[in-house]
């Protein structure tokens, strides 16, 4: 079964069609990367999928549960808020600029939502959070505040925070774009370790080598449409003129 199924998604910002008729699905355990030039609609697609942005038309379902459909007039209709709340539980999102809560300690950032939103028992949540922090290599940072951490450490806390709610799919919106190469490396390492655990992930990224390495499938977006999709080999050895042009620089340096 597809965890996520999007069909005929359209999104316009003031006359500008940012996404024109995109359909995509994500299978359980799959790692899907979305690449493409800035302004091609990658982030908007992610924001529509996570319902931070309202789509104009199209359908979307998570785990076979309908979140959005289109009525006869061609406008998107969203499910009732109780249903959307439930569906929201199926996914998590890691932001480009982390968006940690600065007034919460690392531990509270991770545990507050599981305890106060999902109403899970405190000791269980804390135990899981400590395991997550260990996985992220941040066991000694439990009581630190975000302002005391490096960007890479913040992003790893943000990943732990998203994972603590046990989502079925984890979205990443350019998770390393705000980081220097060294910090990028440590965050990518963590994301790779998640891929090894068969966590379903959709990653918008500009890190080509990383995308090639980690993905089961890559979508190349250009001008609001999917220009090409396929396995990393298919994309990186593509004959498609636009794909080659985009990846050209990358090939030129032979990285």
């Amino acid at each position, binding site marked *: 079964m597809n965890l996520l199924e999007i069909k005929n998604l359209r999104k316009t910002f003031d006359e500008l069609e940012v996404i024109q008729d995109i359909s995509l699905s994500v299978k359980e355990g799959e790692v899907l990367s979305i690449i493409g030039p800035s302004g091609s609609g990658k982030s908007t697609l992610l924001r529509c999928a996570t319902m931070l942005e309202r789509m104009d038309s199209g359908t979307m379902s998570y785990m076979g549960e309908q979140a959005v459909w289109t009525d006869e007039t061609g406008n998107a209709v969203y499910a009732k808020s109780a249903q959307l709340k439930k569906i929201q*539980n199926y996914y*998590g999102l890691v932001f480009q*600029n982390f968006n*940690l*809560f*600065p007034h919460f300690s690392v531990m509270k950032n991770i545990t507050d*939502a599981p305890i*106060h939103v999902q109403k899970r028992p405190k000791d269980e949540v804390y135990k899981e959070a400590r395991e997550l922090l260990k996985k992220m290599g941040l066991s000694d940072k439990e009581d630190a505040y975000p302002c005391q951490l490096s960007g890479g450490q913040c992003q790893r806390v943000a990943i732990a925070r998203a994972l603590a709610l046990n989502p079925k799919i984890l979205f990443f919106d350019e998770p390393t774009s705000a980081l220097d190469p060294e910090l990028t490396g440590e965050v990518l390492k963590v994301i790779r370790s998640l891929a090894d655990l068969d966590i379903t992930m959709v990653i918008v990224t500009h890190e080509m080598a990383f995308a090639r390495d980690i993905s089961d499938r890559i979508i190349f977006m250009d001008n609001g449409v999917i220009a090409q999709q396929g396995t990393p080999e298919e994309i990186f050895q593509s004959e498609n003129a636009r794909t080659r042009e985009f990846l050209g620089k990358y090939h030129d340096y032979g990285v």
Partner: protein
Amino acid sequence: MNWALLLSKLGSGMLTTLEIFCVTLIVSLPLGLLVAFGRMAKNPIIRTIFKIYISIMRGTPLMLQLMVVYFGPYYILGLQVTSSYRLYAAFIAFGLNYAAYFAEIYRGGIESMPDGQYEAAKLLGYSRPQTFFKIILPQVIKRILPSITNEVITLVKDTSLAFAIAVTEMFTQAKALASSQVSMIPYVAAGVFYYVFNLLVASVMEFMEKKFNYYR
């Protein structure tokens, strides 16, 4: 100079001043938050009403507002008010006036919060009240504390405006004493009182700012 009289009169005036000060804060700090919500409402009618309210409160003298609240019931509605109403009129006028100023401070703080905090809260499943009270408001308070300090210090001095409707607060007592005793001393004593009061206010607020210093 009758020192016993000075002490007892200024002492009781001090208590009234403190009362106006405390009641005004207790009323206007929460009321200001409600007014800020009204001012930021999606509904244009509600938004405009609160905008006009703030505009009038900030655009006319507090002394005049005190007069309107105190004499209004008699002149407009023909109601006979008792002299105990004086103090209540002061509470109402100060509360309404300061709520308008606090509302704009709250609004500035709330609007300065980055969207990312709301988006992260939404993705984590927090309800709207949870998002506001757990995530947004604590950060807003840290941001607006210096502006709040300014208003609170102004309030200490503004309490003397209650003189205009003959509330027997500190300043009213000082003036009465100065004329009856033909002396500057009551004014000096009142000045020292306001100054020390504000010194106290400033250090309490500084302490609170330090409390919020554990994060940036």
